[in-house]
């Protein structure tokens, strides 16, 4: 998947402006930056709620479910995008519904989530095997490739992201209420359960979008780390939501830039490393200010 840049051997100079001009001369890089922006905004905002709601495990499961979706779509000969969204949405509804039919306890929910995740990945492996065992195809689905993004794909990403963000904006206040205090929200007549399922569906959408760039296994990096970093930095909800988006976009663009200039290392490595470095820096800053008594964590 790196063949198209391998021949050119781009060199990084000290002139950043010239470097950026050079990167943007290639339409596929422009598409990658556009797609990265869309994906980072959506996953940042959805991930912000995911971190607040402590649903990392569900988020990770919805993220990896994209792999069987894409593999199954390729197997039956339709566009991988359809499979990605179909599987992510189905898994979102399933995770939202199944625990309700049995125990309401957390352990049951996590066992169900873990089983769904492992079984979905096993299905993906079966699909890849049935398709003819193209191993490179499997690694591309799992670890992503940002080089082949077309203008049409960017349009699809944008349309889905706008719809998902519209829904998120519409349910923002009740969802925030239900997240902070589910019992009080329920007593006030907020449909906590329905909101939870709608949120899982949004999470599935975001995961399906991100996985087209980072691959199924590393979607989680964009969902969890920018939001965790922002919530370390400030307890104010509005500010940390905006900060999440800023960090997400910066990390995505930075890693696209780095991946372009280092032809032998994959984007997933840069994406996770940049994001993790941001998190560590925020965590260190938080410890420093907490020691001097300036900051206080107000988030639950």
């Amino acid at each position, binding site marked *: 998947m790196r063949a198209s840049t391998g021949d050119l051997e781009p060199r990084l100079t000290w002139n950043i402006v010239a470097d950026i001009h050079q990167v943007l001369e290639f339409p596929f890089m422009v598409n990658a930056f556009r797609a990265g922006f869309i994906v980072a905004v959506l996953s940042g905002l959805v991930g912000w709620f995911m*971190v607040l709601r*402590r649903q*990392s*495990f569900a*988020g*990770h499961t919805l993220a*990896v479910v994209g792999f069987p979706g894409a593999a199954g779509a390729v197997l039956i000969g339709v566009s991988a995008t359809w499979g990605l969204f179909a599987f992510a949405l189905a898994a979102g509804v399933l995770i939202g519904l*199944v625990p309700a*039919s*049995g*125990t*309401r*306890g*957390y*352990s*049951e*929910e*996590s*066992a*169900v*989530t*873990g*089983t769904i*995740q*492992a*079984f979905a*990945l*096993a*299905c993906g*492996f*079966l699909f890849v*095997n*049935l398709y003819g065992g193209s*191993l*490179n195809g*499997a*690694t591309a689905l*799992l*670890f992503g490739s940002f080089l082949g993004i077309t203008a049409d794909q960017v349009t699809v990403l944008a349309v889905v992201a706008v719809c998902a963000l519209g829904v998120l904006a519409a349910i923002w206040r009740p969802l925030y209420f239900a997240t902070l205090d589910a019992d009080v929200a329920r007593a006030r007549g907020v449909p906590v359960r329905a909101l939870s399922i709608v949120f899982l569906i949004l999470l599935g959408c975001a995961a399906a979008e991100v996985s087209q760039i980072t691959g199924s*296994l*590393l979607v*989680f*990096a964009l969902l*969890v*780390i920018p939001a*965790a970093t922002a919530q370390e930095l400030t307890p104010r909800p509005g500010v940390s939501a905006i900060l999440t988006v800023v960090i997400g976009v910066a990390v995505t663009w930075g890693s696209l830039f780095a991946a372009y200039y280092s032809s*032998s*290392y*994959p984007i*997933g*490595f840069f*994406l*996770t*490393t940049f*994001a*993790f470095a941001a*998190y560590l820096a925020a965590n260190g800053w938080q410890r420093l200010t907490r020691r001097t008594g300036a900051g206080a964590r107000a988030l639950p």
Partner: protein
Amino acid sequence: MTTTLATSAAGTGLGDLLGHDFMRHAFIAGVPIAVLAGAVGYFMVLRSQVFSGDALSHVAFTGALGALAAGIDARLGLFTATVAVAVILGLLGNRGRADDVVIGTIFVWVLGLGVLALSVYGSGARATANGAAGVNILFGSIFGLSRPQAATAALIAVILLLITVSSARPLLFASLDERVAAARGVPVRALGVGFLVIVGATAAEATQAVGALLLLGLLSAPAGAAQRLTDRPYLAMALSSCLAAASMVIGLTASYLLPKVPPSFGILAVASGLYALTFLATPRRHRDRSHPTDLPPEPADEPGVVSPRT
């Protein structure tokens, strides 16, 4: 009991089955690993630490590929990485349980390192063969085990199982009611870290059988099913092990009969199917408890006697 049934059926009906070396090795390694995963998984589900297991399974991928990229035995990397991250997760958390955002942030970065290792290892001269190694680590290659590999895997599984069973009583106490256990002098934090280390080592073991991405199913599905079927802790632990072993045996046999079906899919399909069946068998068993809490509300004196929700 399910295990013996399945084994004897396979033995008599498919006499050919155990005639192949690769099938024998798969059973020698697979059954002890499944029994171990069932027992450890039971505690993992009980302690609501499935996400930690998920994280450790992804760390296993990085460990194995890092070792391959460095040119040493993959198993060495597997155990080193999973045990090291287990200790970190255990120490970071409160009473040996880390916050899920911290877990997620750490493991996704470790997974990113694994991707780097994959690209380093996969860009060598034997790129195709090396790429296949990556897929094997992710999805398992139990039919590819040699005799010494299978024997080592079985031995380590038995040792880990003995450790788990011998610490079952304090672990159960600490899992069911952490505060009372701590007040009674049970070393809750040390148990928490130690348990995560066992989960990490189990993940490293199970990676050899079903692969880093799928072992979570072997840990959580039999355990979830066992918890739906019985309230008694020791019985549930044994049942979880039996269900895992049955999944292993049936899955391996199915994959032997249907060559298009990879063994790890067979194992996972049986395990998930059994769990799904328990939802049909015991539909609304615990409906009365309205609050999702980690701990039972009433303090428990004897861990073996009181098991309110499990």
